[in-house]
């Protein structure tokens, strides 16, 4: 079984088309892709507007943690073939793709949905990336909540 892995921490636009092609193997019949997008309007709780987000990363550790997420996914869903994880950094305007997690497998009942969901959950827990939100009232850092265990 081919097991392509593609990781990117990039200032450039992320293309789901490109990432899907990178993880499509001769055995691939299904790809599930999650993408995060900069929300212009947030209505959870109080409604607020966002003009852009500024992402920064502790790049070498972020790349290590992205690799680790791939290992964790493969341990949990052995039928997953390819995995792509991309995170864009820099200033990203509302409507822009910020991150993509995509998993390929032979069939859709192989855990690809769960694997992609797990991937984005873990990215938001352990990959050292932060974002500052700018809206009509100025800029502020978005607070994370998760505290990884040592070595997690």
């Amino acid at each position: 079984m081919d097991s392509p892995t593609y990781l990117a921490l990039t200032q450039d636009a992320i293309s789901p088309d490109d990432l899907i092609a990178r993880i499509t193997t001769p055995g691939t019949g299904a790809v599930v892709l999650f993408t995060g997008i900069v929300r212009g309007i947030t209505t959870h709780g109080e409604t607020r507007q966002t003009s852009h987000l500024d992402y920064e990363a502790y790049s070498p550790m972020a790349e290590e943690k992205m690799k680790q997420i791939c290992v964790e996914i493969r341990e949990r869903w052995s039928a997953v073939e390819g995995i792509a994880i991309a995170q864009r950094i820099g200033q990203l305007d509302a409507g822009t793709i910020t991150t993509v997690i995509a998993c390929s497998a032979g069939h859709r009942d192989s855990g690809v949905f769960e694997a992609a969901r797990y991937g984005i959950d873990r990215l938001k827990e352990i990959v050292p990336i932060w974002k500052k939100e700018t809206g009509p009232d100025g800029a502020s850092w978005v607070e994370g909540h998760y505290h990884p265990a040592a070595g997690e």
Partner: protein
Amino acid sequence: MNRGRILLFATLRDYTGSRSLEMEIPAGTTVAVLTEMLIKAHPRLEKVRTSMMTAINREYARDEQVIPENAEIAFFPPVSGG
């Protein structure tokens, strides 16, 4: 004694005004002790004391962990990527 380089991100960078700091780190210094040294040097960090995290050589570290020589040390708030 070991002159260590500490990387700072997000709110911690804002509070210290620096992306990285150099500090004298005595042999045997733990993460908890280094955290106290950092807050003492940059009192604005007091308000993120309970939330700040430490990575040693790109791995999440324990408070009681001793900082090895020539380690890559980073302090940062909980992550918010995605």
